[in-house]
C-alpha cells in the first residue's frame, strides 16, 4: 500500500514538472504582457509534434528535438508577435483574449487537418536509466522530464530576476508608460518575453512527447491546467507557479489513482481548489494583492 502511494506521488510529481514546464513560459509572458495567451498550448503541441517527427522520421534524439522545438517556437512566437499580437496589445482585454483564442483555434485545426486528430506515441528509448528505490521504480523519461522542467523553471526565474532584460521586463509590466519614459523599448521587451515564453513552450512540447501522447488537442488540455497553475501561484510569480503545479498534479494524480473512476475527472478537483484559493486570496497564493 505504502509503495503504491509513494509510486503514485512520484508519478504525480513528474507530471507536476511537466505542468511546471508548460506554465513556466506562460507565467513569464503573462506576468510581463498581461495577455492570457491561449495559443501557448498550441505552441506546446507544435513542439511535441516537431520532437516526434524528428525522432520517428530522422531518428534524432529527443534531446535534440527539444532544443530544435525551442528554437522553432521562438521564431514562430516572434512572427506571431510582429504579425498581429503587437497591435492587439493596445486593444481591450476581451479583444486580446479573443485574439489568442482565435490563434489557438486556427493552429489547432490546421494541425488536425494536417496530421489527423489521432494520438501517437513516440516510443523512444528512455533518455535516462530507470531509478529503482526499494521497490519503487521511476521510469527514466519521467526523471528526464522532471530534470528539464526544473532547468526550464530556473532559467525563467534567472532571466526575470538576474538579467538586464529581466529588470526591464518587470519595470515594463509594472508601468509601461513610465518604463517608456525611462528609455525602455517596451514593445521590444514585450516581444522578448513573448519569444522566451514561446521557446519554453517548444521545449516543454518535447517533454510532452516523451511522457504523454502526441495529439493536436493536447495543447488545449495543458494550457487550461497551466492557467489554473499560474492563477494559483499568482500571475507572473515564477516560484508560485512551481508550487501551483505541485498542488494541481498531486490532487489530480492522487484522485485518479485512488478514487474509483477518478481518472476522467480528477482535474475537476484541482479547479475547485483553485476557486477556493481565489476566494481567500484573490491574487493567488503568492501574487501581489490588488493587481492593476
Amino acid at each position, binding site marked *: 500500500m505504502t509503495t503504491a502511494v509513494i509510486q503514485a506521488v512520484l508519478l504525480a510529481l513528474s507530471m507536476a514538472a511537466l505542468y511546471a514546464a508548460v506554465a513556466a513560459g506562460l507565467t513569464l509572458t503573462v506576468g510581463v504582457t498581461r495577455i492570457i495567451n491561449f495559443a501557448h498550448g498550441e505552441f506546446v503541441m507544435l513542439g511535441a509534434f516537431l520532437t516526434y517527427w524528428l525522432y520517428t522520421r530522422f531518428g534524432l534524439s529527443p534531446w535534440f528535438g527539444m532544443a530544435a522545438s525551442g528554437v522553432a517556437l521562438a521564431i514562430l512566437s516572434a512572427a506571431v508577435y510582429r504579425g498581429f499580437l503587437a497591435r492587439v496589445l493596445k486593444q481591450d482585454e476581451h*479583444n486580446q483574449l479573443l485574439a489568442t483564442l482565435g490563434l489557438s483555434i486556427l493552429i489547432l485545426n490546421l494541425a488536425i487537418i494536417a496530421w489527423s486528430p489521432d494520438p501517437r506515441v513516440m516510443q523512444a528509448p528512455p533518455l535516462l536509466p530507470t531509478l529503482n528505490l526499494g521497490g519503487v521504480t521511476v521510469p527514466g523519461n519521467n526523471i528526464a522530464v522532471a530534470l528539464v522542467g526544473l532547468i526550464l523553471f530556473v532559467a525563467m526565474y534567472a532571466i526575470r530576476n538576474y538579467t538586464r532584460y529581466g529588470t526591464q521586463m518587470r519595470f515594463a509590466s509594472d508601468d509601461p508608460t513610465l518604463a517608456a519614459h525611462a528609455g525602455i523599448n517596451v514593445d521590444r521587451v514585450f516581444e522578448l518575453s513573448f519569444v522566451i515564453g514561446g521557446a519554453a513552450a517548444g521545449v516543454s512540447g518535447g517533454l510532452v512527447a516523451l511522457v504523454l501522447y502526441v495529439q493536436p488537442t493536447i495543447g488545449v488540455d495543458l494550457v487550461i491546467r497551466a492557467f489554473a497553475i499560474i492563477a494559483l501561484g499568482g500571475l507572473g510569480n515564477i516560484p508560485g507557479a512551481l508550487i501551483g503545479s505541485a498542488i494541481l498534479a498531486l490532487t489530480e494524480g492522487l484522485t485518479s489513482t485512488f478514487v474509483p473512476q477518478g481518472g476522467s475527472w480528477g482535474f*475537476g478537483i484541482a479547479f475547485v481548489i483553485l476557486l477556493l484559493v481565489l476566494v481567500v486570496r484573490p491574487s493567488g497564493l503568492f501574487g501581489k494583492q490588488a493587481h492593476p
Partner: protein
Amino acid sequence: MNRSLLTRLGLYAAIAAPSMLLVATDQPFLIQVAIGTLISAILALAWDILSRTGQVSLGHAAFFGIGGYGSALLTPVLGPVLGWAAGILLCGLVAVLLGAVTLRLRRLYFTIATLSFSLSIQVLILVTPGLTGGSTGIMPPVIAGGSPPLQLLFVTGCLVVAAGVSDVFLGRRFRPAFFMIRNNPELAAASGVPVTRLKILAFAVSGMVAGLAGSCYCGLYGYVIPDDVFTTNWNVLPLAVTVLGGMDTTLGPIVGAVVLRLLEELARQAVGGVGYQVVYGAVIILFIVGLPEGLAGLGRVVLRRFRPPGEGTRIKARLAS
C-alpha cells in the same frame, strides 16, 4: 421616451421578421441553421450584459449547461412552464454564488476563475450519474413537439425577450452605473454606485439569459450529453460573437451571430470537414486586426460619415472656431 420605445419595438420586429419569413418559406435546412444562430445570439447577449460591468467571462458554458440540464430535469416534475422557470432561476442562483465568489477578482484572475468554474460544473455532472445521467446524458422533453418551424418561432420569442432584457440594462437606469463600474470601480463606489449589488445583479441576469439559451438548445432534439453543452466552444462563442458584432449594444451580438454563422456555413460548403474551424479562427484574427470595435463600430463610422452634422459636432465646431 415614447419615440425610443417605438424604435425599440421596431427593432424587435426587425429581429423577428426574418424568422417569420423563414417559417413561411419552409426550408428545413435554413430553419435549423436559424435556430442555432438565434441560440448563440441569446448566449452572446447574456455574455455582453455581464461584460458591461467589466467582468470578462470565459465560463458561460456553465450557465448554458445548467439552464439546459435544469429545465430538462425539472420539466417532468414541475411541468413545462414551472420547470423552465425553475431551471432558469437555478442559473440565476448559481450566478449569484459565482458572482459573490469572483467579486474581488481582477481581470485575468476573473477570466481564469470563470473558465475553471465551467470545467468544474462539467465534472460535477460526470460524477453524479444518478441525478444527471453522467456521461450518458439525458433526454429532455422537446420544445413544440419537435416541429422545427414552431421551434424557430419559440426561439425567436426567447431572443426578443433577451433583447428586451439587454435593452433594460442599456437604458437610463443602469447604463451609466454599469460603465462606471467597468471603467473605474473605485470611483463608482466613491460616487455612491452600489458596485457589489450591481455586479451581482449583472451576473444573475446574465446567468439566467444564458440559461434560457441552454434550455432552448437542450429542448431541440430530445437528447443531450454533457459534451454537447459544457464544451469550451460555448465558452468562446459568446465572446467571439459579441466582439465581432460589437459590444455594449443589443443589435451587435445578434448581427455578430448571424454573420459568424453565415461565414461558418460558407466555409463548410467550401472546405468541409473541420476546415470551417480554421476559417473560424482566421475570421476572429482578421476581425480583431481590421475591425477591433466589431461590426457595430463599423456601422457607427459609416453612420457618422453619411449623417448631417448633429448637435454634438455643431457645438464642437462652434467651440473650435
